[in-house]
């Protein structure tokens, strides 16, 4: 007994340390965003002037809009193609070039960003020389790059969901007279829908998060939010970036809380239903 207590005390200590390590820097970030002083770590009184400055900056707004546009388009295309790829991997058995296909799906996940960025830039330059497309780099090239690596993540999510799902259901639908395409619409898609939602959100986040690849394949005038942030924080601490980060943290925390709350409610509902059905026998 004594030993167990000691062990769990050790575990609790390490966990608290780890969580503190993860969250203290962010807490400080939020704290200093309300600092009047221009020098971040020197407290100069409460102020929201950096928020005002942030909202007034046209540069920031256009970067935010561009990044959200890219992230939305990326998420939609990556989800679509990643789902197709996941389906092909799990449900189509052997087809020509399957090994290459699997390789191309998994490689982007382990490929360092610098290489992905460099190689895509070189492709766009080569294509530009050969066929005159893309004429200039920016929104389109960044979106293409983001779709390419995001769809791999979606494919993996869909693949694991499909692999865990018994093929019985699809066979049952066929047995009841549904043609393969009908089976896809009636059975497969509704069942992988949660995976598709997760994939969409992940792609959106990955796209919004990416600095390295976008820096390679962007062109004049196309400044995404990470590129903007990077250009500013390279030179040191900036209170307006603290304000921006705070907004992100608040949005994410709220969304997480709402998601958690919904999940909790659904779980309770399900437990209640289970109880009901078991009582009826």
């Amino acid at each position, binding site marked *: 007994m004594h*030993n167990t207590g000691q062990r*769990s005390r*050790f*575990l*609790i200590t*390490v*966990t608290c340390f*780890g*969580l503190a*390590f*993860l*969250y*203290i*820097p*962010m807490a*400080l*970030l939020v704290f*200093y965003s309300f600092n009047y002083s221009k*020098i971040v*770590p020197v407290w100069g009184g409460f102020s929201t002037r950096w928020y005002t400055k942030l909202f007034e900056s046209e540069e920031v707004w256009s970067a935010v809009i561009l990044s959200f546009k890219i992230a939305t388009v990326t998420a939609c295309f990556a989800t679509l*193609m*990643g789902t*197709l*790829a996941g389906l*092909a991997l799990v449900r*189509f058995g052997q087809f020509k070039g399957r090994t290459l*296909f699997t*390789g191309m799906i998994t*490689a982007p996940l*382990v*490929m*360092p*960003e*610098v*290489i992905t960025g*460099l*190689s*895509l830039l*070189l*492709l766009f330059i080569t294509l530009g020389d050969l066929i005159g497309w893309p004429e200039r780099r920016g929104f389109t090239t960044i979106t293409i790059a983001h*779709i*390419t690596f995001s*769809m791999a993540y979606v494919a993996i999510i869909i693949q694991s969901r499909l692999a865990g799902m018994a093929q019985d259901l699809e066979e049952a639908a066929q047995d009841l007279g549904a*043609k*393969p395409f009908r089976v896809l619409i009636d059975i497969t898609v509704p069942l992988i829908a949660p995976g598709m939602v997760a994939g969409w959100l992940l792609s959106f986040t990955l796209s*919004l*998060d990416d*600095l390295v690849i976008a820096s390679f394949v962007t062109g004049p005038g196309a400044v995404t*939010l*990470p590129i903007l*942030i990077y250009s500013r*924080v*390279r030179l*040191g*601490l900036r209170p307006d*970036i603290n304000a921006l*980060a705070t907004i*992100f943290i608040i949005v994410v925390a709220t*969304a997480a809380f709402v998601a*958690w709350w919904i999940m909790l409610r659904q779980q309770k509902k399900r437990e209640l239903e289970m109880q009901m059905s078991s009582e009826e026998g």
Partner: protein
Amino acid sequence: MINTNQVGNSELVAAGPAIIKRLSRSLQHRWKSIVIFIPYFWLFLFFLTPFFIVFKISLAEPAIASPPFLPMIEWADEGILRIKLVFENFVYLWEDDLYFKTYLNSLKISSISTLLCLLLGYPMAYAIVRARHPYKHILLMFIILPFWIPFLLRVYSLMGLLADRGTINNLLIYLGFIDEPIRLLYAPFAVYVGIVYTYLPFMILPLYANMEKLDASLREAAADLGARPVATFITVTLPLTTPGIIAGSLLVFIPATGEFIIPDLLGGGNVLMIGRLLWDEFTANHDWPVASAVAIILCIVLVLPMMLYQRTQGKQVED
């Protein structure tokens, strides 16, 4: 004449449904091909082709031009196709010990950071698995939450902590431990902290998934057979969580080795890592062939072992 015609017609009528059936069946077949073709084509064009271009350029001769390398394939005067391959770039990487040192340094930094992540992440994952019901989900959420906050901003939050006039230095000076700020930011230390900070969840989650699947009765069985907690841990828990340890370590090690943002923002000019070197070679020095050669070698060092690992994993699953 008429008779044969009639026969032909009735045959056609009889064959009608069969033809339609065959058509629709071939459509069912086609439909699958289309599903495969779209992502296949996309990845081929935007993943595989670029990679070959990098490979090609790594074998080209650098030049001061646009693009900054000489074409490899030339029509010689006699109308003979001449292909010129230059391994000079790779020789250059080999001879200039800057590159060699940078590769080594990258591997050193990422392996030490991976180990630190493991030392911190393993007990945390273990604590989450053993946490009681409501706390378990809350803890998990706290581990996942940082994923959704932009990487760049998370790295930036460390800058505020570690800067010369940052929180830690201010606190230490205030408490009287030091008089002058100590150099934390723009030093290797900051890079280690940065990697552990940003990649810790990548270590915890696979470990958690692995431990969660472990049957609690295995530990109880070991205890029942007389193993003390430490012995149980070493003989039962640790061997059974090896897959999680490997998965988590790879998830940290691989991206950390190619990392660009962390050495750039936290390491300053003092920490050489391969991702940054590639970037500098490409943007500042404008040396595309050497940058490509650096990329190819990075690939061989990083991606190949990973693919091989996945291969063996896949085979194990099949067995």
